[in-house]
């Protein structure tokens, strides 16, 4: 891909400079109403009404447009950071979309409609714009008012305005632009089509289900299924899975001192990591089920050697599991459990 010929390179450069200056000339010759019309034309391209800007269009609509009748709310996005969950970029972007569509829907055919436009910029394709705004941390939303000449003077949205998601963003927009965004409509978790489909499914299957329930031969009348469900509920509770869900605990942590090592067990009661809980829950369940197995199933095995081998294995495994759990518990909580003996015995 590298261009070998210096002459050709020069030509290309010249061409680029010329064409871009021409573009500038063309852009700056545009009137304000042209730009508004262009923005309105771009608006429906994305589903939510957020206009995607790049270096060139930003220049066209903001930098080179000396007098503007509209303000822009710009969301700074970076596709390569989407997988960093702690930044919540995608969630915030979705909330931003909600604000944008709420604004467009609620201000249709009013003068406010062409006063505020919601835009986004992607980092990889418009790095120089990021530099123009002086944006170096994400998430970031900026308000560019009609009078702003230097982009760095535009006002950023405060961190805690992100906190309450779309509602607080809308508040920010309303404060800055003096237009009303209106109520924000969140899409229901299930679309109408999906609900209809599910309803139809339930209706169709209902007669079959009722018939089988009455006949008493469903899967749900099988005690084995209920037993396994019961054991699962037990496992779910004692492993602290609920704790992990509520606190959004990760499965394991990377060691701070040595990032290549992983920490699976967290020291300190009242907190736990995901994998830790599951390991312990598994140990509990194994011991309990082994006990049930030994007393109920093993006695029906005809072969004596098999019985003995299983018996000894079960004993050893249980012993090991109980020891392990008690050891881990003492380590985790830091308690040393001991008996109380009469002081004369010491």
């Amino acid at each position, binding site marked *: 891909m590298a261009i070998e010929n210096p002459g050709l390179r020069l030509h290309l450069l010249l061409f680029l400079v010329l064409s871009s200056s021409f573009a500038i000339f063309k852009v700056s010759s545009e009137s304000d109403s042209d730009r508004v019309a262009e923005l309105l034309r771009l608006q429906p391209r994305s589903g939510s009404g957020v206009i995607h800007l790049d270096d060139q269009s930003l220049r066209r609509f903001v930098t080179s447009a000396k007098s503007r009748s509209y303000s822009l709310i710009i969301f700074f996005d970076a596709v390569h950071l989407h997988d960093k969950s702690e930044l919540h970029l995608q969630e915030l972007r979705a909330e931003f979309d909600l604000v944008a569509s709420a604004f467009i829907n609620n201000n249709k055919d009013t003068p406010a409609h062409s006063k505020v436009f919601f835009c986004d910029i992607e980092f990889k394709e418009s790095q120089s714009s990021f530099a123009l705004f002086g944006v170096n941390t994400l998430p970031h939303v900026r308000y560019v008012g009609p009078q702003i000449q230097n982009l760095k003077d535009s006002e950023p949205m405060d961190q805690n305005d992100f906190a309450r998601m779309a509602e607080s963003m809308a508040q920010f927009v309303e404060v800055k632009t003096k237009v009303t965004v209106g109520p924000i409509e969140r899409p229901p978790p299930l679309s109408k089509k999906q609900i209809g489909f599910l309803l139809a499914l339930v209706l169709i299957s209902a007669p079959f289900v009722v018939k089988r329930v009455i006949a008493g031969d469903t899967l749900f009348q099988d005690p084995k299924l209920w037993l396994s469900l019961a054991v699962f509920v037990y496992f779910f509770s004692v492993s602290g899975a609920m704790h992990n869900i509520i606190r959004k605990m990760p499965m394991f942590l990377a060691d701070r001192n040595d990032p290549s090592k992983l920490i699976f067990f967290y020291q300190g009661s009242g907190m736990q990591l995901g994998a830790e809980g599951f390991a312990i829950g598994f140990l509990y369940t194994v011991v309990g*089920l082994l006990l049930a197995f030994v007393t109920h199933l093993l006695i029906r095995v005809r072969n004596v050697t098999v019985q003995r081998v299983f018996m000894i294995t079960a004993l050893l495994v249980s012993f090991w599991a109980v020891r392990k759990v008690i050891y881990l518990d003492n380590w985790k909580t830091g308690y040393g*459990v001991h008996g109380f003996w009469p002081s004369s015995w010491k």
Partner: protein
Amino acid sequence: MGGKTESLNGVKSGSTQTSMGTAQIGLKPDLFNFSLKSLKLKTKQQELLIRVSVLGLIYILAFITRLFSVLRYESMIHEFDPYFNYRTTVFLTEKGFYEFWNWFDSESWYPLGRIIGGTLYPGLMVTAAFIYWVLRFLRFAVHIREVCVLTAPFFASNTTLVAYLFGKEIWDSGAGLVAAALIAICPGYISRSVAGSYDNEGVAIFALLLTFYLFVKAVNTGSLAWALASAFGYFYMVSAWGGYVFIINLIPLYVLVLLITGRYSMRLYVAYNCMYVLGMLLAMQIRFVGFQHVQSGEHMAAMGVFFLMQVFYFLDWVKHLLSDKKLFQAFLRITVTCAIGVGALALGVGMASGYISPWTGRFYSLLDPTYAKDHIPIIASVSEHQPTAWSSFMFDFQILLFLFPAGLYFCFKRLSDATIFVVMYGLTSMYFAGVMVRLILVATPAVCLISAIAVSATIKNLTSLLRTKHKVPHGASAKGTTSAKASSKASLDQSLPFQRNGAIALLLGAFYLLSRYAIHCTWVTSEAYSSPSIVLAARGAHGGRVIFDDYREAYFWLRQNTPSDAKVMSWWDYGYQITAMGNRTVIVDNNTWNNTHIATVGRAMSSYEDEAYEIMRSLDVDYVLVVFGGVSGYSSDDINKFLWMVRIGGGVFPVIKEPDYLVNGEYRVDKGAAPKMLNCLMYKLCYYRFGELMTEYGKPPGYDRARGVEIGNKDVKLQYLEEAFTTSNWIVRIYKVKPPNNRW
């Protein structure tokens, strides 16, 4: 399936079980057997005697193990809520029931006040007052405080009896005894029922288990008397604790499961209808509950199941009348459709018209646990509402957790109406225990019962293996021989010495585990659950015990040195204690019924001093009380609770914003802390003159021992408040709000 375990006669099983039970409390069962044999009692009498005496010992054990707190500290009321209960009980015994029932308390929630009679569950107070009156009548000159302190252990002892009866009902008397022994010392229950823990739960767990037992008994017998008794048990539970909602949802669920699995019977019909109708009518007599049984969404499941029962009964009757099967099928279809349609319509209309209230936040947060965290900070902030980590389960149940799955398995092997109930109770409560730490308490009886089934059935199997073996070849006298042969175990196996050894090994293992359980429970009771949390104890530098009695020092200072109509502002945790011990009016207390009022206090605490002064003037506050652990290293002080004040305050007053108090999402009090943090009222009151104090050798002055940092604002100046009193270890600090300046 369980036929093998049942094939033995009851005598042997009884005596082996008692050996289990006594092992728990360290008695030698052989001693009993020996001395009893010399008395020449009949086997059945022996068994009864042993059972009764073991039960008596368990009863005493359950009581005395809860006295650790009295031994280690003194006979006093613990924690926060019990102080309110104590205060109301004293009021009840002094003024009588009607005064109590109509009591308007102007000393809390100033200036709103609180209607006590209509906003509390009176069961506990009435029980304690009743015990007090009975003792007085018998001419025992006891103080009401002693009665309150010992109410919870007394009811824990009674719970063991109920556990025995319940275990006997669902499995056999052996399992009952084991269940009684397990629950007597189970830390999950002890945590709420040590002496001094005078709280609703102490009585309520007894009532809960009693209601369940009576209901299962009613279902098993179909007798109206038992159903009536269970309705009264339910009434007692409703009067004692808000956790009755668990009963009124679990029992319908249980009935529904029985209906679905085709276990509908006349017994069930009698038991449920009687219990529901009477229980509901009785429960309406409690003013705090009122008409909720017919109006609140949380109680609708019970009503739905009630109507479903009638439909079932009606169908049964029609089936009886109609001989044609096809006709009945058609009829069935129409009736079921109509019934469901009418039910759904009624519910829909009720909800839409607002007659039936939707679920409350607390209930909703149990079903969808992430709800509270996002929506109701006042619920999420309470430490006992946190989700449970595995170590808490281990701490409260220890080996019962290992036995629980085995017990489940045993129950499924011998499914009956009763075992289905205990399995459902166990699983639902286990799930709820996973959601909130405090609900481990509700799960404890179920875990004990199910584990007791596992222990009892296993040991019964093992001992029967041992006994039959040396009986069959040599008769009864061949004790200790290793050449025992043949087995009654379905005659599966002919070479047995090894199996016998295996049984002995397993028995020893079980004995070892159970003794570990006893040691664990004793230790936990003694070290972890006996602290009154109003008097703090710590290990000093030389290993000796240091007692911090700052709370009482401060409350008695308030009582002695402030005008009797003074209003004290503090965070809500200390409200009950201030009214009960300091006898002064508080702005907010632990009955968190008015979120806005609490948020106002939170706002005052997190504002600058001048703004806070405006708020305090508007609430007529005379004194401000803060709890501070920087000198003593006490970590659950107001600085560590402060973020919750900000959150709760910010939830109502958006001017308070949590990020203002954080630096890059981090909560700090040192030099790098947020400026708003360093100048808010709470910070100033906690750290006033703290910068002059050397707390630890080798550290600069103003070193906060609870957080391990040097504080950021050492030069705290107070403009509108002045220090009134600081306790000896600086744990409680009281400030006087200055009157407004003269205008001339």
